[in-house]
């Protein structure tokens, strides 16, 4: 029941989380690292209690839209047989996994700024000197990671120097056409001079700002200006490049193997060119497509973990 309730609240946050936060509603989630089903206090004593043997290498797992950290399949309590990516990276490569929970209905730049602040606090309070901070973002979580890195680069944050690699799983780097389609449909409905049709359009416009940011993968508030200027179903040219100086690894799913179908439908939510950040110059060895894998399956896929392990087992 507890997990289902948390998932329901996560889905509600993804749908109208910006409204919940704006109205001070108690259902709005604040960004935090979750440990044992509760938010983790970022002070050295609390961290030492939660992690008796902290590693100098930390993997930060960031979930996607309408999810919570449960999307990774992690049990609430520490379990030696857990098979989620974080637990396996801990066992196989010595990372300490930290699971972020956040309000995925807030604008991506707001969540990026919150993650930047959270990681700043983490680096200051971590019980041992951190040598590597590895962000692992799933779906929207990857965009939140990129937004945080962008904010950190702008403000010259110390935690960014610990990030040498970043992993994105099913992340819509060039946006999500489903949201852009929704935007077009809403715009068309608003032009119909019928009160019922307008009501439907108004209801469609209630979707959260976080969800709307997914359309063009807006990482900064100023990126929204191009959304207002044009309504297009084509992938946009992204104004914020993947940060140089970090090795980016991208995992993407496709339900079908035909290239044209993968480009069109991808993993049903994110098309392959968007998930692989096509034309961004990422070496092919750092990109992997998983045919027959849906968007949801990417978060708990043995094949994806094997690839993560292969990418990350080398020293950074």
């Amino acid at each position, binding site marked *: 029941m507890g997990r289902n309730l948390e998932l329901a*609240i996560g889905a509600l946050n993804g749908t109208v989380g910006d409204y*919940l936060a704006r*109205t001070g*509603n*108690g*259902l*709005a*989630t604040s960004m935090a690292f979750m440990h044992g089903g509760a938010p983790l206090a970022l002070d050295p004593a609390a961290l030492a209690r939660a992690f008796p043997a902290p590693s100098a290498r930390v993997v930060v797992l960031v979930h996607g839209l309408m999810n919570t950290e449960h999307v990774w399949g992690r049990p609430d309590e520490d379990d030696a047989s857990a098979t989620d990516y974080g637990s396996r990276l801990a066992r196989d490569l010595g990372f300490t996994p930290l699971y972020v929970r956040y309000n995925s209905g807030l604008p991506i730049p707001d969540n990026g700024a919150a993650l930047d602040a959270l990681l700043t606090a983490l680096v200051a309070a971590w019980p041992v000197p951190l040598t590597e901070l590895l962000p692992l973002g799933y779906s929207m979580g990857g965009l939140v990671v990129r937004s945080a890195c962008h904010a950190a680069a702008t403000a010259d944050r110390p935690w960014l120097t610990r990030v040498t690699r970043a992993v994105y799983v099913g992340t819509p780097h060039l946006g999500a056409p489903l949201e852009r389609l929704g935007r077009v449909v809403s715009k068309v409905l608003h032009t119909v001079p019928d*009160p*019922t049709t*307008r*009501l439907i359009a*108004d209801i469609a416009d209630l979707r959260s700002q976080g969800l709307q940011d997914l359309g063009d993968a807006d990482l900064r508030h100023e990126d929204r200006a191009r959304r207002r200027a044009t309504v297009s179903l084509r992938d946009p040219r992204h104004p914020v490049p993947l940060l140089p100086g970090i090795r980016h690894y991208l995992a993407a799913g496709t339900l079908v193997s035909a290239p044209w179908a993968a480009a069109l439908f991808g993993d049903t939510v994110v098309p392959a060119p968007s998930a692989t950040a096509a034309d961004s110059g990422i070496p092919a060895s750092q990109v992997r497509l998983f045919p027959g894998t849906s968007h949801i399956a990417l978060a708990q896929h043995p094949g994806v973990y094997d690839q993560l392990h292969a990418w990350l087992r080398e020293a950074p």
Partner: protein
Amino acid sequence: MSTTTRLRGLAALLRDAVEHGSTAIQRVHLATAARPFFLLEAIPAVAEPAALVHRVYDASVSFTYDNVRRVNWIVGVGVGVVLDGVEARERAEAAAEDAVEPRLIERAV
């Protein structure tokens, strides 16, 4: 996030949904009904009584939706009062537990 905070959030969300939802549906209701009235009011022979019926109709519809929002507000206040009571009881119980524990420790020593 405590259970009471979440219940308070859920109550507020439902209250907002009824408030904004009823306002939006009222707008659609009035706009849809206005179409036949608009046609009738364009016919000189029935324009005056049609306008009168239109005004009465709009007033009765608005009265009904206003009552929905009024009851919604009253229920919201009632739920808030109940949750305040639950929170006050939880605080009192927690304070009582805090007061008992040191005494038990003293006796044990």
